[in-house]
């Protein structure tokens, strides 16, 4: 099938741009390990409270300025709430849902992941800038969805 000269140029430039974008994403993903949260560990969603580590949600120090934050998302709150984190701390989020699907997002950061019942979601983030952050649920979970949020205080 015949393509006109300008059309060829248009499609080649367009296709090359898309390929370049994919290359950047691919290098980020496979060479630098920047994958979106894709944990495969499962849990019985009806026994979250009885299953470690979710039987004891909270912030646990595991190294020098490095923490594990074990959280349970449940309609319509995150547990624990009102979290205090020292500035510069590296935090490993370990989250699951005790009921429906939730989304865990911290506004103005790249912390954003789905929390699907039956699965554990993990992500790591370093809080370099002190301030008061807003953690909220960003997947519709019921009539109180817009009230599901909490503060994270990153102190100097």
């Amino acid at each position, binding site marked *: *099938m*015949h393509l*006109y000269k*300008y*059309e060829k140029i*248009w*499609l080649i430039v*367009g*296709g090359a741009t*898309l390929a370049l*974008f*994919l290359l950047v*994403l*691919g290098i*980020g*993903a*496979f060479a630098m390990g*920047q*994958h*979106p*949260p*894709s*944990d*495969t560990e*499962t849990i*019985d*969603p*009806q026994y979250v409270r009885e299953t470690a580590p979710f039987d004891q949600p909270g912030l646990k120090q595991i190294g020098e300025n490095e923490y594990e934050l074990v959280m349970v998302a449940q*309609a*319509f709150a995150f547990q624990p709430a009102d979290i205090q984190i020292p500035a510069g701390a590296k935090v490993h989020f370990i989250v699951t849902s005790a*009921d*429906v*699907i939730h*989304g865990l*997002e*911290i*506004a*103005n950061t790249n912390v*954003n*992941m*789905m929390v*699907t*019942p*039956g*699965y*554990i*979601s993990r992500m790591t983030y370093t809080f370099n800038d002190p301030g*008061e952050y807003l953690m909220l649920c*960003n*997947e*519709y*979970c*019921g*009539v*109180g*969805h*817009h*009230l599901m*949020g909490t*503060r994270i205080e990153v102190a100097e």
Partner: protein
Amino acid sequence: MRRLSLAHLWVSFIALFFGAIAGLLQVLVKKGVLHLPNGIGYYQVLTAHGVLLGLVFTTFFIIGFLISGVGRTTGELSASVLRYGWIGFVLMTLGTVLGTIMILLNQATVLYTFYAPLQASPWFYIALALIVVGSWCSGLAIAAQYWKWRKENKGKISPLFSFMAVVTMLLWFVATLGVAITVLFQFIPWSFGWVETINVLLSRTLFWYFGHPLVYFWLMPTYICWYVVIPKIIGGKIFSDALARLAFILLFILSIPVGFHHQLLESGVSPGWKFFQVILTFAVVVPSLMTAFSIFATFEISSRAQGAGGRLSWLKNLPWGDARFFAPMMGMLFFIPAGAGGIINASFQLNQVVHNTLWVTGHFHLSVATSVALTFFGVAYWLVPHLSGRQRTKELNRLGIIQTILWAVGMTFMSGAMHASGLFGAPRRTDYTTYFDHPVAAGWIPYQTAMAIGGALLFIAILIFLYVMIRLAFFAPKGVEEYPIGEVGEGAEKTPAIFENWKLWIAISAVLIVIAYSIPIFEMLQHAPPGSPGYKFW
């Protein structure tokens, strides 16, 4: 044929009216200037908005439009085709009425994506199944008419409109298999209580297997208008019949195995498979690039043929005062930022910045609610009077222009504010909230004002549109309105017969779907956690 097509259009317009009311209520509630009277919930209204506009308005309009165009290009619809068409219409209408009742009864406040384990009344899922099965009957009717034409015209290339209509309904059929499987085998048994739990991730995956090609089911009829109808309206020719068919075949093949780009941030799917579907998502941009080139080539060629000179002055020669052209043209222009936003959303890691924020809502209000909706409005401005045997008067045409401008301005406000506040973290799908007076959430308030202003303009635009439709259907002077179908330019290449080799395209599509989905779904089943019981959190 006229009655069948008009019946579809009217259901779609009624859905548009109620969906628009829901939309207006939402922006006002979100801004905090309105409290819904006792008993009506924000999320109930949001469910109605999504179902009525995303599923009902679009599907009815598309089927009404396609049936009329297939009739226009292949001759009288046979009796059996009409029968299938009416059966489809009745099933879809029953589904719509049942679904709306369940939403109004507050038995289905699960939003139009109905993610498990939120559990609606089984009748809501049955309503969805009726709409899907009804649309299959309509698809069969369109395919049967096409086959009849092929039989009577052996060796000839089918009319472009009919070919595109068949590709659209074929895409719809393959895509809806996913949602049909999850509704029939997961949601209905679970909501009736025949089984206790549901596999949440599998249901989401089957939903998004359907959810992204759904977008192309909206887009392909839009492209039909751009490829086939617009050239005739501007007094030009179709740039290339063969390229148009190639674009549609590529859309069919590439737009299905891409659903994971809606699930990039969730557990249970390995990143390799997510990335594979991201590659296919980027590939489906190519037929849209082809479309953009063809359409603007048609504009320039026809404008120059009518005597326009200069590098850009041919733009002036286009019929900007004709609502049939102006509305879809605005839709095309809005598709440029909409498409760019779509590429951002699908960009693997980058999705983390925007996922489930208002940015995404802003994105699909540009794509489906502007590019697609404005094109459908543009089609309605000639299709309704064509079917009702009335004239599109100067006054009504002018109202169409005003309506389009209002839509473009309103959407710039609303979608622009959604995009911006989404980047600052404002989540989608939330009732009025200050997050306990959190300072971060306070920063989103000005954008909510802009959204409310935009939403109000959009509502006025819908009222004008519906007023014009009522005039065109019942009160405008009797007359003949043309059904514009473009012809292929003289210099255009001969269309290769391979495009109508349906077995080949279905086979390629099936292979890609199997490659993209079989291993991830196998892993999902193999390592499935215990299922979830249903929750009614509303």
